[in-house]
C-alpha cells in the first residue's frame, strides 16, 4: 500500500550497500598496501575517506527524514534504526582503514624487517567478517550474522597473540621497535574493524528478529501476558 515509502526503503538499503562496499574496499586496499609496501594504495585509501564521509551523511539524513515523515512501525522501524547504526559502524571501519594506511606509510619509510606476526592472515579473517556481515544484511538472514559473532573470538585471539609476540620481539631487538609498534597498531586497528563487523551483525539480528543481542544480553523474562 505504501509503495512510495517502500521504494524509499529500497533506496536506503542500496545506499547502505554502497557504503559497505566503500568501507570493505578501503580495508582491503590498506591491507594490500601493507603486503606490497605500496604508497600509492595508501594514498587511495586516504582520498577515499572523503567519499565515505559523504555517503554516511546522506544515509543519516535519509534515515532521519523517513523516521520523521513516515512514522514507520515494527520491522520498518527496526530496519531504519539498524541502517543508522550500521552506517556509523561502516564509517568507523573507513576510519580504521585510514589509520592502517597511515601506519603503512610510516613503515614503508623504515627498512623492511621480518616480524613474527601474520598480519595478512588476520586481515583476511577480518575482511571475511566484514563481508559476511554485509551479506547477512543483504540477505536479511540472522544465521549469517550469528556466524560473524562467532568469528570475533578468533580475531581477538589473533590480536592478543600478536601483542605478546611483538612485545617480546621489541624487548629482544630494540632496533626494530618502530616497525614492531606499527605492526602492533595495525593489528589493533584490524581488531577494531572486526568489532565493528560484529556490531553490524548484531544490528542485523535486531532488525530481522526484533531481538536485542548486544553485549551478550540474556533475553528478558516475558512479563505475564493477558491470555488470548
Amino acid at each position, binding site marked *: *500500500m*505504501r509503495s512510495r*515509502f517502500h521504494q524509499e526503503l529500497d533506496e536506503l538499503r542500496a545506499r547502505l550497500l554502497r557504503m559497505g562496499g566503500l568501507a570493505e574496499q578501503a580495508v582491503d586496499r590498506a591491507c594490500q598496501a601493507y603486503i606490497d609496501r605500496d604508497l600509492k594504495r595508501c594514498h587511495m585509501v586516504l582520498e577515499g575517506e572523503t567519499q565515505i564521509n559523504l555517503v554516511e551523511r546522506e544515509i543519516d539524513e535519509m534515515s532521519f527524514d523517513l523516521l520523521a515523515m513516515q*512514522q*514507520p*512501525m*515494527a*520491522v*520498518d*522501524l*527496526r530496519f531504519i534504526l539498524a541502517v543508522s547504526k550500521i552506517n556509523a559502524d561502516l564509517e568507523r571501519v573507513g576510519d580504521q582503514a585510514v589509520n592502517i594506511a597511515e601506519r603503512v606509510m610510516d613503515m614503508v619509510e623504515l627498512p623492511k624487517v621480518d616480524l613474527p606476526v601474520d598480519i595478512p592472515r588476520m586481515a583476511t579473517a577480518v575482511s571475511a567478517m566484514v563481508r559476511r556481515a554485509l551479506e547477512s544484511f543483504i540477505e536479511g538472514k540472522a544465521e549469517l550474522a550469528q556466524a560473524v559473532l562467532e568469528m570475533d573470538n578468533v580475531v581477538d585471539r589473533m590480536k592478543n597473540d600478536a601483542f605478546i609476540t611483538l612485545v617480546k620481539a621489541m624487548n629482544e631487538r630494540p632496533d626494530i621497535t618502530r616497525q614492531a609498534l606499527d605492526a602492533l597498531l595495525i593489528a589493533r586497528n584490524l581488531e577494531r574493524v572486526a568489532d565493528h563487523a560484529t556490531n553490524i551483525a548484531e544490528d542485523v539480528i535486531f532488525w530481522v528478529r*526484533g531481538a536485542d543481542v548486544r553485549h551478550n544480553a540474556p533475553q528478558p523474562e516475558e*512479563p505475564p*501476558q*493477558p*491470555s*488470548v
Partner: protein
Amino acid sequence: MGVGIQVEKLNAFFGKTQALQDINISVLANHCTAVIGPSGCGKSTFVRCLNRMHETVPEAKATGRVRIGEMDVYNGSSATHIRRRIGMVFQKPNPFPTMSIYDNVAAGLKLNGFRDRKRTDEIVERSLTYAALFHEVKDTMHKKSGASLSGGQQQRLCIARAVAVEPQVLLMDEPCSALDPISTGKIEELIFQLKEKFTIVIVTHNMQQASRVAEFTGFFLLGKLIEFDKTEKIFTNPSDKRTEDYITGRFG
C-alpha cells in the same frame, strides 16, 4: 475503581452475517486497551457487544460470555441495567441538543431517577473537572445548551456525562476521529488520568493514537482477533505477519 473484562467465545451476528468470530480476550483493570484493525474488521461491533449496544440494531445478536468485574453481561440483568455500569463515548460528539450543559452531564442521573439536587451538583462539577471542562463552562453551564460548544468541548462533555454515573468501564468508539489535533491531544491526556479510575477500551483506526494511549492493543481482522499483546510489542515486533502487514501499511 475499574474492573477487568473477560470475554469468552464471543460471536456476533447481523441477521445471517457473522461479524465476530470466537473472540477471547482479557482486558486488564485500570489500563487502557486499544482495538485496531481495518474498516469492517468488527472492532466497533466488538466494543458495542461489551455493553449490549449491539442489540439496538434490529436483527442483531450476540452469543458468548462477557464478564465485566462481577457482572455477567449476557446472563444476568437487563441490557439497560448493564449499560448503567458501563460508560460509552461515541465517534461523533452527541450531547442532548435540548439540554443545558449541566443537564447533559446530569442526564444519566436524572433519567434514571436520581433526585438529590445537592449531590447532583457535586457530581456534575466533579465529572466536568474530570473531563477538564469545568473551568471553561462553570459560569454558563446552566444557561448554554450542550450543542453550543465546540467539537472538542462537546466530546469532553460527553465524557463528563459518561463518567457522571460512575461506571466501572469506559468504552470509547473512535472518540477523536471527528476532532482537530489539539482537541485530540487534550482527550488523549484525559485518558491518562481516566485510567486511574476506570478501565478503558478504545477503538481507533489511528495507530499512532493507539500507541500513544494504550498499554495493550488488540488487532482485529475480518471479525477475528488476530493478536493481542502489549502495545510496544505489537508496534515494534508483532508475532503475527498479518498484524505486521497492517501496521506497516502493506494492506488496509
